[in-house]
């Protein structure tokens, strides 16, 4: 049982954990290569999540304390003896006891996973973290392991980088407009795919919504970033050619595929 046609009828049951182990393995393998089925499973999982929230309990503080006690010594796969010099002392400053409030920025050198996944996640969801207080940029994930950068100021603000990108004639400046022309936005993309949303006239959204930027091509819409409810200058990255850029308003946190009509789009 490996073919698309054989497996597609099982996708609903798969999303509800209602298949046996052999079927699950076959579907897992198929999902690695089939975007259509991945999209369908994502939709089923959203329905399952909706079903799962029909009964919500209060998340108790003592349960959180129990979880925290298990993770306090770090993840299991972190070796007791660091594989590389200078990677000891990996724990973050203690989090606030209550499940809310501020957090501490952590040196990326202190907090590395054996990854590329963060960059992938960032590209998929198009998130570039710009911290108001500070400091950490996702690009630093690729920085030298020995750096201690938590407090080092960025070389340039995202606003400066965006302004420089606009001034560079080798980059592509893209204007987005609404159907009635009332709203506009401007983005700039470098030949390497680094992009910046430079400006927009979009009104602020309620807190439970966010603007989301998309690159729309023949294969569908690829998220370039969650822009927040009140978008300012933001960085994003485009993999492959830029076709049509669009901004939609979506539920907070973003969505894997656009669920609403674009508010502004670029012209060809």
């Amino acid at each position, binding site marked *: 049982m490996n073919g698309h046609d054989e497996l597609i009828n099982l996708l609903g049951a798969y999303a509800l*954990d209602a298949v*046996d182990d052999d079927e699950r393995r076959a579907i897992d393998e198929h999902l690695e290569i089939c975007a259509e089925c991945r999209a369908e499973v994502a939709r089923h999982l959203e329905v399952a999540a909706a079903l799962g929230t029909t009964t919500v309990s209060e998340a108790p503080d003592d*349960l959180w304390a129990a979880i925290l006690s298990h993770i306090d010594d770090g993840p299991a796969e972190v070796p007791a003896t660091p594989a590389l010099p200078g990677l000891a002392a990996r724990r973050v400053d*203690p989090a606030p006891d209550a*499940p809310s409030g501020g*957090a501490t920025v952590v040196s990326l050198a202190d907090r590395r996973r054996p990854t590329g996944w*963060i960059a992938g996640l960032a590209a998929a969801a198009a998130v570039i973290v710009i911290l108001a207080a500070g400091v950490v940029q*996702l690009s630093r994930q690729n920085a030298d392991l020995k750096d201690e950068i938590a407090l080092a100021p960025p070389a340039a603000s995202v606003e400066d980088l965006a302004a420089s990108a606009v001034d560079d004639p080798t980059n592509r400046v893209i204007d987005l407009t609404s159907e009635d022309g009332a709203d506009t936005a401007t983005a700039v993309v470098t030949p390497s795919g680094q992009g910046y949303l430079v400006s927009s006239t979009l009104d602020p959204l309620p807190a439970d919504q966010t603007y989301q930027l998309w690159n729309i091509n023949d294969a569908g819409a690829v998220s370039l970033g969650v822009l927040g409810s009140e978008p300012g200058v933001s960085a994003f990255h485009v993999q492959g050619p830029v076709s049509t850029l669009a901004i939609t308003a979506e539920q907070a*946190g973003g969505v894997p595929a656009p669920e609403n009509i674009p508010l502004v789009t670029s012209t060809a």
Partner: protein
Amino acid sequence: MARPVIDHRTSSDVNLVIAVGRYDQAALTEVYRRHGGAILGLALRLLRDRSLAEDVVQTVFIRFWDHPDRFDAERGTLRSYLLAQTHGRSVDLIRAETARHRREERAGQQDRRGEEYDLEREVVDLTAAEHVKEILATLPDGEREAIELAYFEGHTYKEVAVVLDQPEGTVKSRIRSGLRRMHTELIKAGTEAPS
């Protein structure tokens, strides 16, 4: 030297995942604040045993802490991912004999005592939850029963086929068509799983 402070309450879920990738406990705290209640509620619904349910919640969060890279934003929201993990782990327990026994014993106690845990702890988002329940109720009986038995009782579609005395192919088709129908209705109602 003091480090700058991030307020994760305004972070998107994806940014929280990235922060967890840097072992930022405060980001995990915020994930728990946003989604812990839904996760515990689902585990309680499935397992009907608070101790087992809390074990599942712990497992889900510890696994997420250890492997945030397993979350794929292209496959859905963080909440749907965590709920799927919760459902999978709960179903594993349901299908284990010892847990099945405890669950049935607990269910019997509940029959006698009413839904005690619900009254103790539940904080239900009535609007959204009722919407979902209403949409589920509008499905054709065969689709609704198949989905309920699979999702809330932890049965495989083959077990559902036996329970409903229907062919397996019919049951898996009904689960799929029912979920597709619900997705359409949830989109219309703007009540997809809150993130």
